[in-house]
């Protein structure tokens, strides 16, 4: 998001925001409820990620298009109506495509309405930016959320069932780690990913700090 006085991001940078710098799961730690609840398998994670991305892109596009028409006082209500519309669309779509996935995701499809990533994007980005920029940003955010969910879902499925996307990895004798498909497992895996992400980020920051200092002393 470009603040006044700041140089505007290119569309590529805008897209990468959600995937790396502002990743909804690993950096902003938003949308934890669906993240922890549905990430028991890679397929569930992927479906949830795609559903959220769809709602995110469509609703931010619409919010961006009407951003100059909506009075400030009723904007949140307007956003919710727009988001709820697309959630209903997704709800029926998933039911039509795969009833198994629909049952697995349960109430969490309807709960996309109150997903803070979507409302946050609508309020912080779509209401201030032109449609193309908003859609690019929303696509990045949606993809970042999907990647976050997938990285949790994959680890939990590998340990919890010995499978990945339903394909058996270790043969029939695999001992499932029951804890991984239970809520504590979700927290453990999320914690481990956050640890890894922060470690990588800190290493980058340290490297960036050390270099100019070295140059300074040599000069």
């Amino acid at each position: 998001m470009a603040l006044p006085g700041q140089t505007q991001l290119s569309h590529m940078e805008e897209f990468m925001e959600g995937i790396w710098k502002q990743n909804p799961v690993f950096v902003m730690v938003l949308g934890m409820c669906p993240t922890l609840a549905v990430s028991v398998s890679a397929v569930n994670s992927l479906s949830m990620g795609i559903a959220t991305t769809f709602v995110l892109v469509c609703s931010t596009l619409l919010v961006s298009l009407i951003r100059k028409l909506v009075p400030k006082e009723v904007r949140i209500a307007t956003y919710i109506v727009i988001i709820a519309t697309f959630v209903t669309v997704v709800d029926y779509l998933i039911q039509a495509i795969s009833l198994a996935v629909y049952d697995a995701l349960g109430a969490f499809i309807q709960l996309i309405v109150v997903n803070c990533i979507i409302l946050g994007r609508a309020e912080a980005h779509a209401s201030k930016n032109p449609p193309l920029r908003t859609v690019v940003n929303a696509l990045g955010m949606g993809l970042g959320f999907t990647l976050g969910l997938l990285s949790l879902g994959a680890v939990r499925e590998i340990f919890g069932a010995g499978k990945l996307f339903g394909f058996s990895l270790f043969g029939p004798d695999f001992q499932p780690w029951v804890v991984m498909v239970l809520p504590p497992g979700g927290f453990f895996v999320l914690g481990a990913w956050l640890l890894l992400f922060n470690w990588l980020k800190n290493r980058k920051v340290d490297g960036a700090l050390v270099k100019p200092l070295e140059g300074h002393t040599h000069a």
Partner: protein
Amino acid sequence: MTGKSRRIELRAAPHVKRGVNVETIMLHVVLALLPIAGFSVIQYGLSALALIMATTVSCLLSERLFSRLSGQGNTLADWSATITGLLLALTLPPSFPLWMAAVAGFAAIALGKVLFGGLGYNVFNPALVGRAFVQAAFPVAITTWAPAFFPGRFTGFIPTTFTMPLMTPPGLAEWLHQHVVDGFTGATPLARWKFENHVASAGDLLSGVATASAGETSALLILACGLYLAARKFMDWRIPVAVIGSAALVALAFHLVDPGRYPAPVFVLLSGGLMLGAVFMATDMATSPVTATGVWIYGAVIGVVTVMIRYFGGLTEGVMYAILIGNALVPLIDQYTQPRVFGARGRKA
């Protein structure tokens, strides 16, 4: 840490009277654990030995890995990881597959200790965190028991010991049928009480012939080792006394109300991991309160929760969760049992 001297000594520095540091205390705890570990090897043979080595090596390697990653230098010398490994093995069933034991050791150090900042900063007893992790991950393996003193224990392993990593351990039924006297049900005394209403005799429980985790069978031996630590003041004697005392009182109350349903306090005290937990795990210095009043409250909570879980919970044994709950309460207990500062007025202790 424990001794409260009422005398005030006026002397110039140095004030150190006894060369006790973390390493010395930890080393003595290791020494006190060795007889218990040795007895479990006598009872369960090579499998118990392999189990003890697996958890200890796993704990030491994890500790080394994380101390290197965090740049803390070599923290193996303080013996704390060795204690965690030994204690962890003693709480596991002797037939526990070694790869699961290694997972437990890693979880104990990584989740129970390093995550909080290492020795002294951990909120929960690391060995119990490791055990809780594998209890949640592998509920079947951790409730599969082998009989004590089974024949051939020094010449061979229990078949589940060398399960391929990540694989399900084989069933023990056939092996038990071939090696063990008839009528072994594979149930611990607590399970037999809970599901069959059979109360094991105190003699069996004291001497350690009952089925149980590797190191919790002989109450006598655990008490003797605990007495040594308490006598050398390496351990706060109040904690085991409070745990055992409160468990006995609650058990007695239930027994008096309904003797047919609830066993005598002796059974409650001697069965399961109560002794091992009270003497070696509840007393962990980093995870128990520092105030004298607090220590009594802490011990009483553990004793009462243990009996409550055993009597009314779904699990047969509650010591592990009772101690973890006690650990979680420690900061609160410490805060409310602060002694009054000498000479200060107003707020009472």
